[in-house]
């Protein structure tokens, strides 16, 4: 018996002319297409908050205040970036806050105890931070437990070790000052210097923050790895089935958080010469809040790197704005909570607009 479809096989199906359109989808308006971007809700909120404090607190209008707000935002925003990428990749890292302190303590104690050039401590701290991230990712993959649980464990481990190890070496809750050690000034100029623009001093972290945000955006939207981040967060099993290295992507994302913790840890160490071993607890939630306010989906697979930048900026404005407006700073957390809920609602609405045709 012969093949019934043999004739059809030899000619491949003809392609319709390239200009042919489905014709049912009306071109979405520019406004709607803009709204479909994950960070637009946050941008609207940021403008709202800015206008609010601009009106309510006269000292908020000064350039010096802007520098302070941006500094606040940058220290938090540098960490919010890798946390946001991790969230787009579908995972959380609750150890991110104390990991900053761990990194700073590692560099401080190591340099001081061994009386070495601070750069050795800085380098070892980087290795330790990346290792903590890799450990989180590896444990997640090996156990299959939710990252919430795995990183809650490492959060407690790091928090406890930070206190205990510091006490062993210094008998105190803070590390010894490394201000007079070799290489300190050089490291300070890299991690904690200031840049004067028009008579106003801007901390160098602000510029790092914006550069990192640019790199993260490029990574997310223009590289293979970025494609994989969206895929492992959006549907891990599908991603695996089409050949995406899911485990590698997740471990790399956790290591990215480690790298961020190292950078912020070094900034804090070289700003204050010493580290308080109980610092950082609770900051992990601020990073997550910045990412969520910035439009990243809590369940993964959706978000941007610009979003958490705006989220961190809102955080900085609220944090300083309350001070400039002479309110009781205790209101800060309450204000942040309201912002978070509003952001969640705006995100929900924006996403519905985005997927509506």
């Amino acid at each position, binding site marked *: 018996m012969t093949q019934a479809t043999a004739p059809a096989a030899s000619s491949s199906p003809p392609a319709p002319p390239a200009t042919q359109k489905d014709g049912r*989808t009306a071109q979405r308006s520019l406004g709607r297409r803009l709204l479909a971007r994950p960070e637009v809700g946050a941008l609207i909120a940021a403008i709202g908050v800015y206008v609010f404090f601009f009106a309510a607190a006269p000292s908020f209008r000064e350039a010096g205040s802007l520098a302070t707000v941006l500094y606040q935002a940058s220290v938090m925003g540098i960490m919010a970036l890798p946390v946001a990428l991790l969230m787009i990749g579908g995972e959380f890292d609750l150890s991110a806050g104390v990991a900053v302190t761990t990194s700073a303590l590692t560099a401080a104690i190591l340099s001081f105890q061994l009386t070495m050039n601070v750069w050795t401590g800085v380098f070892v701290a980087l290795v330790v931070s990346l290792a903590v991230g890799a450990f989180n990712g590896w444990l997640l993959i090996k156990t299959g437990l939710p990252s919430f649980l795995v990183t809650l464990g490492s959060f407690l481990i790091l928090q406890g070790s930070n206190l205990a190890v510091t006490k062993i070496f210094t008998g105190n809750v803070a590390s010894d000052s490394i201000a007079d050690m070799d290489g300190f000034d050089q490291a300070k100029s890299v991690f904690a210097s200031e840049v004067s623009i028009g008579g106003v001093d801007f901390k160098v972290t602000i510029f790092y923050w914006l550069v990192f945000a640019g790199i993260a955006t490029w990574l997310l939207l223009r590289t293979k790895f970025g494609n994989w981040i969206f895929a492992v967060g959006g*549907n891990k099993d599908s991603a695996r089935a089409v050949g995406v290295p899911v485990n590698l992507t997740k471990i790399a994302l956790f290591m990215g958080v480690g790298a961020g913790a190292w950078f912020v840890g070094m900034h804090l160490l070289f700003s204050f010469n010493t580290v308080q071993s109980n610092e950082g607890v609770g900051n992990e939630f601020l990073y997550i809040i910045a990412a969520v306010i910035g439009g990243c989906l809590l369940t993964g*697979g959706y978000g941007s790197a610009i979003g958490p930048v705006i989220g961190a900026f809102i955080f900085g404005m609220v944090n300083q704005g309350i001070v400039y407006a002479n309110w009781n700073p205790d209101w800060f957390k309450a204000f942040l909570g309201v912002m978070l809920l509003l952001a969640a609602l705006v995100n929900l609405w924006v996403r519905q607009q985005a*997927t509506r045709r």
Partner: protein
Amino acid sequence: MTDTNGSTAAQSAVKDAAPGPDKPVVELRGAGKSYGNIRALHGVNLTVHPSRVTCVLGDNGAGKSTLIKIISGLHQHTEGEFLVDGEAVRFTTPREALDAGIATVYQDLATVPLMPVWRNFFLGSEMTKGPWPVRRLDIEKMKKTADEELRNMGIVLDDLDQPIGTLSGGQRQCVAIARAVYFGARVLILDEPTAALGVKQSGVVLKYIAAARDRGLGVIFITHNPHHAYMVGDHFSVLRLGTMELSAARDQVSLEELTNHMAGGTELAALKHELAQVRGVDVEELPEEEDLTAPVATPKDGAA
């Protein structure tokens, strides 16, 4: 992973290997798979030759998807042997199967709903340009290629940037098929590709299967539709409760026999009897038992 186009690299690898037309590309010998204490597949033999279409048929839960998941690297077999080019292999990830030129359309389609259509099309095999530190996605080329491949299937999308989750089930299926056809260099596996498709698109898929066969690919075609299977198949395997019930070349089995193997005439008669018990179902119009075992359709008008 570093080459800009997975399929070209895999295709050039094929030429080096150059297997004869009679040597199987993929072969299962007494293969089986247990999920814990569920034995989903047992003692299955299957060969896939270049330029041949192997159809796998069977009831729901017969183990068809389990069978192809072993070949596509999603699961590992727990008994028997799995050979590629005559060598025993054990794929631990789908990546390894893809690198061996085996592409799959999964029954659940394996798409990421919130990602744009073109990103889904190239997911895991992205086209890139530029040297390493600034190596980046070749977005323009990917969009153009995805658009062309989809148009060839008769799917015209206005906006390849829309999330794939907003497409209809059948459109999504077409994207998954177009993707596998584009990346499948040696073996193409389709798990119920026509399940959600209209008549026109089903016809296109069958043409694609035939075209892939003529290009020298080995095809595994899983379907519940014996007419579709018989139109393109060279070899038919029927699974039943995890074991191979029938394995026959095209000249050894007729469409009627195949249809009966899939949903035996006696079972249909029993079904008719059961339906008669249900009030309101008119069984007068249903065919008699002898009609059910008689030829159902000829291959030519089977597509409808």
